[in-house]
């Protein structure tokens, strides 16, 4: 730039710099006011001042946690007119969960998807589902070619096979690493959980997950009152609010009390297997020993706790 042109721009304000300043300032102000707008809604939604000021799950004292549970239970009751059995369930000693799925059996009926929605109080509108059932052409396992929107009068289709995908509860979870506020972490039993009251909704984790297992609440979740499942825990299926992430947590409010996950119990063909990896006699441990299990995208090094397998005599076709 020459001294001449610089000379021309002086003194005072050029149109350019005026607009730059004005736009910047107005934009900044606008951002601040919108950011503050939810404060106005504190009374009308699940956002409360206490919730906002609450500490991170791992830092709460037992009393604070009880207070948080009471506050959430009250908010749920107010909104859905059901008294929830809300509690905090801790991991069990000597338990690390694993999941195995028999791909030679799955018929793609999506019962698991909807049982999960019902169990975990997922938003019905907009729809949030943790499990995606991919329909894939036979002879390849390429997730990117999988289609979860298939719509057929009956399943299975002879030319396809079906692969349900949900959170793999990785031992080396990329989603946890990218979270800027540590709102998501791995628990001792291997379940990757989210503190919905701590999540800031930046969606880094969603982008980091190679399995597309995380879901974001773009809008205020809507659940019909009569469909609420009152059996809830803090880290799993209590109703979420707009602007936070959620995902499969192996039904921890059930599984940490010994029950099987909802998706498994509903499977009409018995393709889903669950249990304690540290117990050599559990169903998953035996399957891991005797079947040729594999994990999705092994090369990315996420070390999933979710395994897939085919039966040995599987000939890739169903009558």
């Amino acid at each position, binding site marked *: 730039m020459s001294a001449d042109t*610089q000379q021309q721009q002086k003194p*005072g304000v050029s149109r350019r710099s005026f607009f730059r300043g004005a736009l910047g300032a107005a934009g900044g102000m606008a951002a601040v006011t919108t950011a503050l707008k939810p404060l106005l809604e504190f009374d009308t939604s699940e956002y409360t001042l206490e919730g906002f000021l609450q500490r991170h799950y791992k830092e709460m004292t037992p009393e604070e946690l009880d207070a948080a549970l009471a506050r959430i239970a009250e908010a749920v009751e107010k909104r859905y007119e059901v008294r929830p059995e809300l509690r905090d369930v801790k991991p069990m000693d000597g338990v690390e969960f694993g999941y195995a799925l028999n791909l030679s059996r799955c018929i793609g009926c999506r019962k698991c998807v*909807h049982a999960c929605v019902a169990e975990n109080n997922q938003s019905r509108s*907009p729809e949030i589902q943790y499990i995606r059932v991919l329909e894939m052409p036979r002879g390849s396992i390429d997730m990117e070619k999988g289609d979860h929107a298939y719509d057929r009068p009956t399943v299975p289709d002879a030319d396809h096979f079906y692969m349900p995908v949900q959170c793999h509860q990785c031992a080396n979870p990329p989603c946890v690493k990218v979270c800027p506020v540590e709102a998501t972490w791995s628990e001792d039993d291997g379940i990757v959980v989210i503190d919905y009251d701590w999540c800031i909704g930046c969606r880094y984790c969603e982008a980091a997950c190679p399995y597309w297992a995380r879901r974001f609440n773009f809008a205020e979740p*809507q659940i019909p009152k009569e469909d609420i499942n009152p059996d809830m825990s803090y880290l799993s299926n209590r109703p979420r609010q707009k602007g936070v992430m959620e995902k499969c947590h192996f039904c921890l409010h059930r599984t940490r009390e010994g*029950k099987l996950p909802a998706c498994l119990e509903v499977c009409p063909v018995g393709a889903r297997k669950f249990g304690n990896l540290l117990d050599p006699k559990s169903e*998953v441990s035996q399957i891991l020993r005797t079947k040729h299990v594999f994990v999705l995208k092994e090369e990315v090094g996420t070390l999933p706790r979710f395994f897939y397998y085919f039966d040995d005599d599987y000939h890739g076709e169903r009558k």
Partner: protein
Amino acid sequence: MNQGTPQPRVDRFRGHRFSAYFVAPVFFALAAWFWFGPELETLPEANDTSVHASLLSTEPHRTILGDPPRVHVNGFDRTCMECHRLFQSEEAKTQKLLQHEHIRMEHGPNVDCYICHDAEDRDQLTLGNGVTTKFTDVVSLCARCHPSIVDDWKLGSHGRTNGYWSADRGEVRKLVCTECHDPHAPRTPAMSKIEPLPAPNGWRQGNPAPDHHDSHGHKRDPLREALRRASEHHESHDK
């Protein structure tokens, strides 16, 4: 590059102070609009997408017989032997029956009833060579001809377990073969050709599905839907 004469910094600040007079009212106007202005167009609400609870039953496909087995025949609830002790059966019985007409054998070459049912004691199943077993021990019957599947069932790969994942915590309810398979026609329709539950309608279920150019793919694209609604909204305002 020619740096030119360094200009005094005051000048630049003066410029901004000047613009602040213009900007302040804009601030307030904008702020007022955000606080009191119209609600921004929110994303559309889909219909309630819950599926009926009956479609999500965790009950097995079939209820099985106990020991002794009891059946409803002609309005009476009887054990098999309450009738069968009254008459002698034919040597090899296939499907032409005066009783139990609902039974259709579609189990490969197994058409003779006595492959599985004991000819003498009808309350028992037969394992061959005169060995019998209770109806509740049906797995031993299936194991005669499907040993590898039964092994898979034992280790937990074939079939399904309901209830608890460990006996230390509660009842581990391992479904037996006939809770899924009809022994007479084992390829159960409930496990092969069934209607799938609805596909997701979500804004973002992870990555988008590959091109769906069928009618459903389009109808179920909620972002497209949102755009459509927004434009309709604007059109109605324009009028």
